[in-house]
């Protein structure tokens, strides 16, 4: 993602990923209701997306390194 100057992210950027995941979740919830087999499989894929995204960003944060104590910080 292109980095924007600090503090100037417009709402459409802020909500881009959450909205996309919301759409996937909604489609996933509906899909398994509409049919079996293929519809179920589609539903698993779409509903797994939010979990995958969360795990991805958590791993990225872990990789960046553990917490280092700094003088004078609140904890």
């Amino acid at each position, binding site marked *: *993602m292109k*980095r924007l100057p*600090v*503090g*100037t*992210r417009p*709402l459409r950027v*802020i*909500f*881009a*990923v*959450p909205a996309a*995941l*919301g759409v996937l*979740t*909604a489609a996933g*919830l509906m899909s*398994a*209701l*509409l*049919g*079996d087999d293929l519809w*179920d499989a589609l*539903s*698993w894929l779409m*509903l*797994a997306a*939010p*979990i995958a*995204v*969360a795990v*991805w*960003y*958590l791993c*990225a*944060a*872990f990789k*960046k*390194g*553990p*917490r*280092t104590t700094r003088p004078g*910080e*609140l*904890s």
Partner: protein
Amino acid sequence: MHVKTIRRWSWIHKWTSLICTAFLLMLCVTGLPLIFKDELDDLLYAQAEPAQVSPGTPPANLDTIVADALARYPGEFIQFIVWPLDEPDIVRLAIAKAPDANPENNKVLRFDLHTGKFLDEPDYDSRVTHVLLELHTDLFAGLPGKLFLGLMGLLFVVAIVSGVILYGPWMRKLDFGTVRWDRTRLARWLDLHNLLGAVTILWAFTVGFTGVINTWADLVLKIWQIDQLADMTAAYKNATPPATMASVQVAVDTSRKASPEMVPLFVAYPASPFSSKSHYAVFMRGETPLTSRLLKPVLIDASNGTLTDSRHLPWYVTALLVSQPLHFGDYGGMPLKIIWALLDVLTIVVLVTGLYLWVKRARRSTAPAPAPYVPGAKQSSTVS
């Protein structure tokens, strides 16, 4: 967004969350094993298995099964005959001391659908899954408990909506998914709360809101009785209950003929909560995951087995029935259940981090509140 507006939404988010968090944690924790209720029941409790039959074997005559059940409990009454969705080779009979008794106290007898043989009478009430389910649905407090949890669910829904609104101003300075692992614990937990909240939002909203709708089930049933059921059976308003009962097999056959594209889900006997005092109500269902929730009651005059009326359920009952799978997550096989469980765990993390953020900030209440970035407003450096 104006500072004042943000403050107002912060206040709403804080208080709706705080009031419901303890109950939501209980619901998420008890809900986790309940996602796998069928599997746990199979694992923990042995049940008699139905006979293996070749496909196309016709079901046994219901009248024989009913006679067998009543012979086991002389002087008692059948309230329901159920063809469970999760046990296609079984038919369950619910027996009560009176035709209009509270179904909660029913005895449940399982019969082999094809041979018509009695299988067993499971003691569902003593199962640990059942106790969990009771805690989850009504805190062991009946309808008031149920409605109370529904209210907590509504607060949760408001907390989610206010969370979405606050997410915008909070994330002005951060890329999506940033977790500042190298900063203060407060920043880290706030980021975790925001990230997990943002990805689970629609699922949490759906499960939360459908849960609220489920708490209204008893009321919805009452409204249906007063509204559609009363209308369909208006001609029988002053009729006396039938002295001799027509064959329930005939009633089911007649219903199948009236709705050939559907199959029966359950029969409600006269005077039970799902029927009038003069009718068998045969509830027919479709055969896809969605249409299996769209029921159509066929009312059969219990004195002579003839068709009285048949209509699709009104929208408010359909809304309740469709909201149930969306709450339970039981409509897409085991992978869907596992996804449901993972999303439930993420929601627990959102609840716990939210609680932590409040505790931390309440302790530092003398310090200025960590204000989110507002264009043009003076920056506070408390959070990041």
